[in-house]
């Protein structure tokens, strides 16, 4: 078991955004997370990556309780993440974005980080943009950069937050191809996505969240056939 989330809860004031959620992810698996807007999906990521601390419950990663660790410590432990709204280091070049991640997330020496960064730029199709300021990239390339930078931290677990959102059909297909390759290399992933067919093409399991609670979890087909999920997520009558 690479990641175990046990009875995690989080409130902002009186608003409970995550209620008693538990799930786990096996090494090499891809877990897809679905849920309506405001269901608490991104909060769940923040709780795993450490951007937000849990009020109750625990997050165990690779056998270690990481609930009290800061985000940079969790990153170094092997949890890499991308943000729904890309957060590039806008004044730095694309290459430098990755070098930073490789130096500090993967704890490489600078020279090793150069090689790693160039390699990942090549793989993710960003090599032609290597020396551009990250702030000047198009949306697709910013999303690619989010992914590439997270990869440069050499994560064991990759958290992807709506990385296909806002992309055209064709761009989303490119992204899925890329993710499939990353998955084939053995990286464990959790992917929050509204583009259901993209998610279905790669996820081994699905988790559906509604009002901060776990609504369903299991094999993708079984979950999508679940009457509660159809009602809540797709507005369909069962």
């Amino acid at each position: 078991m690479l990641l175990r989330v046990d009875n995690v809860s989080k409130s902002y004031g009186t608003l409970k955004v995550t209620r008693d959620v538990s799930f786990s992810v096996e090494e090499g698996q891809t877990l897809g997370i679905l849920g309506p807007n405001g269901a608490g999906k991104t909060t769940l990521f923040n709780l795993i990556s450490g951007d937000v601390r849990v009020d109750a419950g625990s997050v165990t990663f690779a056998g270690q309780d990481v609930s009290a660790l800061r985000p940079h410590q969790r990153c170094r432990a092997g949890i890499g993440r991308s943000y729904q709204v890309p957060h590039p280091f806008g004044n730095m070049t694309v290459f430098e974005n990755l070098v930073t991640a490789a130096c500090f997330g993967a704890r490489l020496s600078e020279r090793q980080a150069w090689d790693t960064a160039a390699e990942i730029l090549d793989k993710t199709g960003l090599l032609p943009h290597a020396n551009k300021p990250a702030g000047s990239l198009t949306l697709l390339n910013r999303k690619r950069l989010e992914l590439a930078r997270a990869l440069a931290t050499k994560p064991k677990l990759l958290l992807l937050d709506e990385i296909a959102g806002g992309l055209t059909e064709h761009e989303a297909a490119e992204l899925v191809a890329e993710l499939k390759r990353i998955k084939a290399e053995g990286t464990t992933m959790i992917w929050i996505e509204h583009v259901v067919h993209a998610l279905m093409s790669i996820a081994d399991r699905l988790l559906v969240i509604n009002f901060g609670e776990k609504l369903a979890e299991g094999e993708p087909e079984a979950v999508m056939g679940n009457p509660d999920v159809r009602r809540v997520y797709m507005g369909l009558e069962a």
Partner: protein
Amino acid sequence: MSATVIRSTRASQATIGIGAALCVVAATLPFWGESSWMREFVEIACYLIFAMMWNLLAGYGGMVSVGQQAFFGLGGYVMLSLGNFLGFNPFLAIPLAALVSALAALPVSRLAFRLQGGYFSIGTWVIAEVFRLSIANVSAVGGGSGTSLTALRGISRATREHTTYWVALGCVVAAIALVYLFLRSKQGLALQAIRDSEVAAESQGVGVARMKLAVYVVAAFGCGMAGALYFVSNLRISPDAAFGMNWTAFAIFIVMIGGIGRIEGPLIGAVVFWALNKFFSDYGTWYQMGLGLLAIAMTLFFREGLGGFLQRRPGFEMLPTRRILKLDVQPATPVPAHTPAAPSQLMPKVSL
């Protein structure tokens, strides 16, 4: 794949060459220049070092402190006390005073770092006022009316002026070199990442809190050094002069004009400030209002400052911290993901 990275530009090689030559010429100034030039240099050197530190803090670390005069004044008073009371050579007391300022920054940071954004700014200002009022109550250093640096008596005026000038030159060169080398290093990468996005930096493994503390302490060291240097040259210190808000105000002006969050910013800004000060300071209040208006105009219409204007022209960076990946390497693996499939593959051939 083995990456080749370029870290200098033609402009940067020229800058370093010209800079080194200028330093050599500058070092000989006491033998041919006037003493007023040396005094002017020392003063602008203090402003420059102070502004460089403020740029590190605010431009890179996102810590908009308006209370750096706390460390400037402290540096001045520590240098004076070491000289007057403990018999230290004031010139040798400058690095010690800087060190004391850096140490003082540790407990101060515990207090200031509890505050965020605008509260942090006001908090640092309040802390500087506490420093000023505390020192004003110490009668040994003359209380509110201040005191003179007596430790340099007995040294001839020429020797004092020359030594002060050389020390100032040394401090400026050291400060520029240290900031430059730091920003080019791996740690500099982390600091630039923090400048661009704190949240993302933290999630990419950068220990943001620790880096900010380090920057705060280094900035206090630099400000303390500038303060000690200024009052070695000035020979007289008072709480109002040492802990005056205008130190930070001028530093902000210098950085804004030159370009915040850029290494060249304070250098360019200090030259502009020196020129404006030289030609317009006789206009008194009008001059200061002009400076204010200029700063407002810059922040509204020309945010990148003069440094940013130059940097947008590739190869014009004087002190580049960038890492340019050499792209003549052939991609190691074909990238099928973003090469559109040939039409023949999409449309099955139909034979009739």
